[in-house]
């Protein structure tokens, strides 16, 4: 059966039940009820995050919001609030401050989980009820709660403007990861500002239906929340494993809507493959751009509209890595069967490191980084920033260079670079030769440490 039809049928079925449960109070009374159910679980979060963008490790104090979803003190928030946090202070609704630990996060859905340190807390932990984001309706009244511009415990009201807003997954988090590939967004006109990030979007039954994550500037009342059903899947996996594991086959889809004539497909049938990652399972199985996937494991798939693409990506990603999947593919006028084994998607980005004495920051190259930055391979360490007027800057190192050797000895990955760096920093030396790759060329960069003082800068 067509999935969209199925979903709308579910909505129709569930609606009378929902109405039956709704107490028949006035709007004002229902707002009070929702407030009383969720506000006690609201958390004001003040993380100190690490930032490597300027070529040095800097600390930034930021503000976000979160909500307690588990009696042991687990808080859900955005990855862009807490993902790079080294120190987190939370303020609960009773204005008590508690430290929290980072449990895990998922940049792809922009979700992170924290755990409050409850040892010295004598108050009561309130847990917010989570709703069902599949059954929300456009026009439904909602409340947004959080700390806009750091103003804690703020409530704003509005309606759901759209429940299936699509954003391209080219959008990047401040820390650089591409995000939004596996979810649609609930759009609301409830006021959302800086600092609301990670806070709950609440229905008038007092259930969390989304996590507010994005707002639009230069516009009024355009806020976007990650649907709570996606959030729940992600938080459960983080609680179990500390991370979210996804399968990868290396295909990028494109909505078929305008291309059905060209590919000769029937309406609502198939997902068009527009791009294939080199070296991916799809490439090795000889799938090609222009192929239309009709079925995955005998289940029909559809990607006529962009709004259907996140579900397609999730359909593949949700399988354990190493799963063998069968694809029925339309190529030209023929149908073919493909069988391929998924591989783990892996981390979007590697760990960061600051070569403080040398004046630059580097990141371990993961496969996804290699693909998004068009690197030939993942050998070396990726330069994320160069400190102004530091030895690397003066030597001509650029952001985006890949360090592949130090003093002509190969550096294959970040751990090797860190070893070499620590060894050289502790020894008497005044010059270092880096071999870097830049736009397909190899380049030599000399770090002259003599001219920039011999002090142990930030080490």
């Amino acid at each position: 059966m067509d999935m969209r039809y199925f979903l709308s049928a579910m909505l129709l079925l569930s609606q009378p039940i929902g109405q039956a449960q709704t107490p028949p109070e006035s709007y004002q009374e229902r707002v009070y009820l929702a407030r009383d159910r969720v506000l006690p679980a609201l958390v004001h979060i003040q993380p100190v995050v690490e930032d490597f963008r300027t070529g040095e490790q800097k600390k930034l104090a930021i503000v976000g919001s979160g909500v307690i979803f588990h009696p042991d003190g687990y808080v859900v928030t955005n990855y862009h609030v807490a993902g790079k946090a080294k120190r987190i202070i939370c303020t609960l609704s009773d204005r008590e401050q508690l430290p929290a630990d980072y449990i895990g996060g998922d940049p792809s859905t922009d979700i992170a989980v924290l755990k409050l340190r409850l040892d010295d807390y004598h108050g009561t932990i309130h847990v917010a009820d989570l709703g069902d984001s599949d059954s929300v309706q456009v026009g439904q009244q909602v409340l947004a709660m959080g700390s806009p511009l750091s103003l804690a415990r703020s409530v704003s009201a509005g309606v759901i403007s759209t429940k299936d807003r699509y954003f391209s997954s080219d959008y990047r988090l401040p820390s650089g990861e591409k995000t939004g590939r596996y979810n649609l967004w609930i759009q609301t006109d409830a006021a959302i500002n800086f600092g609301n990030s990670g806070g709950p979007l609440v229905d008038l039954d007092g259930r969390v239906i989304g996590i507010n994550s994005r707002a639009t500037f230069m516009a009024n009342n355009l806020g976007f929340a990650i649907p709570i059903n996606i959030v729940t899947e992600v938080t459960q996996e983080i609680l179990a494993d500390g991370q979210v594991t996804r399968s990868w086959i290396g295909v990028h889809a494109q909505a078929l809507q305008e291309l059905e004539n060209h590919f000769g497909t029937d309406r609502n049938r198939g997902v068009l493959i527009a791009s294939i990652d080199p070296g991916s399972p799809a490439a090795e199985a000889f799938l090609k751009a222009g192929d239309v996937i009709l079925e995955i494991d005998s289940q029909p798939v559809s990607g006529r509209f962009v709004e259907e693409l996140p579900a397609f990506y999730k359909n593949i990603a949700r399988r354990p890595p190493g799963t063998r999947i069968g694809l029925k593919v339309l190529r030209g006028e023929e149908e073919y069967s493909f069988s391929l084994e998924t591989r783990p998607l892996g981390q979007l980005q590697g760990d960061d490191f600051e070569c403080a004495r040398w004046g630059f920051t580097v990141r371990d190259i993961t496969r996804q980084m290699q693909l998004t930055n068009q690197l030939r391979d993942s050998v070396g360490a990726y330069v994320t920033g160069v400190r102004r007027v530091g030895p690397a800057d003066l030597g001509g190192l650029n952001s985006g260079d890949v360090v592949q050797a130090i003093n002509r000895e190969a550096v294959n990955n970040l751990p090797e670079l860190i070893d070499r760096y620590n060894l050289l920093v502790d020894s008497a030396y005044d010059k270092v030769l880096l071999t870097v790759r830049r736009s397909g060329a190899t380049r030599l960069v000399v770090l002259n440490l003599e001219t920039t003082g011999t002090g142990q800068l930030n080490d």
Partner: protein
Amino acid sequence: MTEKRSRRYLTVWMIAAGLIGSLAAETGAQSFDFEKLRQRVSEYSVCVKIQVEFSFGTQTNEHEERLLGTIVSDDGLVVFDGGFLVEESPFVPTGGFSFRSTPRRITVITLDEREYAAEYLGVDRFTGFAFARITGADGKFSPVRFVKVSEFKVGSWLACFALLPEFVAPPLAADIGMISSFVTAPESFPLTVGFNSMEFASVLFDERLNAVGLLGALNDPARRDGQPGDLMESYDQMEIPLLGVITAERLDPLIADPPRRGQTARSWLGITMQSLTSDIADFLGLESPGGIVVNEVIPGSPAQASGLTVGDVIYGINGQRVDVDREEELSLFQRQVTNMGVGTSVELAVIRPAGDGLDTLSLLAVLTAAPLAASDAEDFEYEPFEFTVRDLVFSDFIGFNVEQNSLHGVVVAELKPGGLVAISGLYPGDVIQRINDRNVNSVEEFAEKMATVEAQRPSEVVFFVWRFGQTMFVNVRTDWP
């Protein structure tokens, strides 16, 4: 770029005005016969009116400049300041976008108010001087004759004329300055003080009224911004080019064989490179600095055919030592190779690190034509779809961060905002690889295939497009006239 340039003009103008003021008080030492000079200059000084179209992706602007020009040959070759005529370097990454300036109409007006049309030729990247040739003249012109000076002496006076605004008569105003320094590195160049950027490309005279050269600056065409004076800038934050004398030695070859946009005989080896500094020489275990470190060998280039590999050090060319030990000097080597000409055989003396030791090799390369800049690449405007495509060039691959020649297709150079391909989702910089599932490798093929497609007048045309590492399909819903 032009903005930066005009900012420069302004600052330099202000500084120069102060300098001239202070100099004027004590100029007793110089003895120019300005009346005689004015007569002489009037013979070959002209006003060049040039209309230029600037385009960048979706933006196109028309612009008119009025500049001082000088007739340098009796058949009407004119040289003028071409700094604003951005001609991209073939070696600077484009990222797919190209900024192009297209001279549409040039009018040369002599001081006795004869008007001529002129054909635009091109800009010399090293000096920023532009060349145009007068067309349809009935007689011969009396050009300036440059005199070679054996030695420029610091402190000797020079004079030149600036072109005044249109509403002022007479149109020329004299100015004086002097040789302030004669620098020899990174290359030989007599510097001046007292002149300003408004006088760029005007003829410089010594006190015996010999034309000793043109006021100019030296560029490093391999640098990102490629602005006049890049090779020699004063060391302050304002990046003011150090003005000096572009001498007869430099000018004569340009006058004999003026640069022609898009069709030069520039030659190349096909490597990207850096200089062998003393630091790098130490690390490589070489006794002395000076040479070219090969960073990349372009597939299909003379370098590849010669057997040159990444990491090699070129220390000699045709038996002559390559003494390049600073990045600023790289352009000397580039110019040497550039000027040798397509088809020239060169013998390269090469040191190749091998294990712990060093091998010495002698390699033979036959130079081929240097790649074109994006703005000079073959292009094709496809009017029904309201856009222009061009061939892929060397600098695209650097900009795309992919290996040379690892992609095929044509680049979307310009498109009209709101035009047919723009609303279909195509962007400047996209590489069109297929039209309706058929490969395209060049602008020529693109034109042929579109003609075939157009004959069938289909309701849609599907392009397969490469956009920074990912591919996609773009459906153009046609609107045939």
